[in-house]
C-alpha cells in the first residue's frame, strides 16, 4: 500500500511517501502499527485530531476500512485558497 505524507506530517516522518506491507483493517489500525515502528511516526501521529486522512485520494475517517485500498495519505487540515 502506498502511504503519503504532506506538510508537517511529511517533515516529522522524514519522507513524502513509502510502500508499506500491512494487514491493518482500518486507517486507525495502520496508524497504531506505524506508531509501534519508530518514534518519528509516534511524533507525527501524536494528536489525531490535528490530522486528516485521504483514502484513495478521497477525504475519509480514521475508522475507514483498508480492504482493496491502494493509497492512504496523512496530512494536517488543509489551507488552500
Amino acid at each position: 500500500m502506498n502511504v503519503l505524507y504532506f506538510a508537517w506530517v511529511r517533515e516529522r516522518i522524514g519522507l513524502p511517501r513509502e510502500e508499506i506491507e500491512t494487514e491493518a483493517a482500518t486507517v486507525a489500525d495502520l496508524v497504531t502499527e506505524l506508531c509501534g515502528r519508530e518514534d518519528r511516526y509516534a511524533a507525527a501521529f501524536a494528536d489525531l485530531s490535528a490530522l486528516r486522512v485521504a483514502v484513495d485520494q478521497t477525504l475519509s475517517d480514521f475508522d475507514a476500512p483498508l480492504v482493496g485500498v491502494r493509497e492512504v495519505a496523512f496530512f494536517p487540515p488543509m489551507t488552500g485558497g
Partner: protein
Amino acid sequence: MDVRVQEAAFDLGAESAGFAARCTTSGAVVTFTGIVRDVADGLEAMEIEHYPGMTEAALRDIATEACNRWTLEDALVIHRHGRLAPGEMIMMVATAAPHRKDAFEAAEYLMDYLKSRAPFWKREMTRAGAAWVAAKDTDEDALTRW
C-alpha cells in the same frame, strides 16, 4: 467547467475577460482572487504544497457541486502551487449565472470549500524561519453555512 492546478502564474485580466466572454447567457459574473499578503513580520515567500491527483479531483468535485446547487452557466477554478512572492496571485475562481445571487453564493461556496477541503498546505517563509499556516476555525465554521 474549467479547473486548473499549476505552478505558473496566471493572468487575472485575461482569465476574467475570457471567462466573461465565453458566457453568453449570463447576466452576472463574479470573480474572487487570492493574493499573497505581505504580513507584518516580513514575509519573503509563500510555499504551497499540494497532493497531485487528489487536488484536481477535489477541485472538480467542489466545482461540480457548486454547479448542481446553483444555476450557473460556467465555473472556473485556478490554483497555484510552489513558491510565491508577496503580491503574487495564489488562485482565482469565477462564476457566471443568470442572477447575481447565484453567482455570488456559488463563488463563496467554492472559496469556503477549497479553503478547507482541497489538499493544499501553505508555508510562510519569513526572516524568522518557515512556518506552516494553521487552518482557521473560522474557515471550518464557514462550511456550516452550506
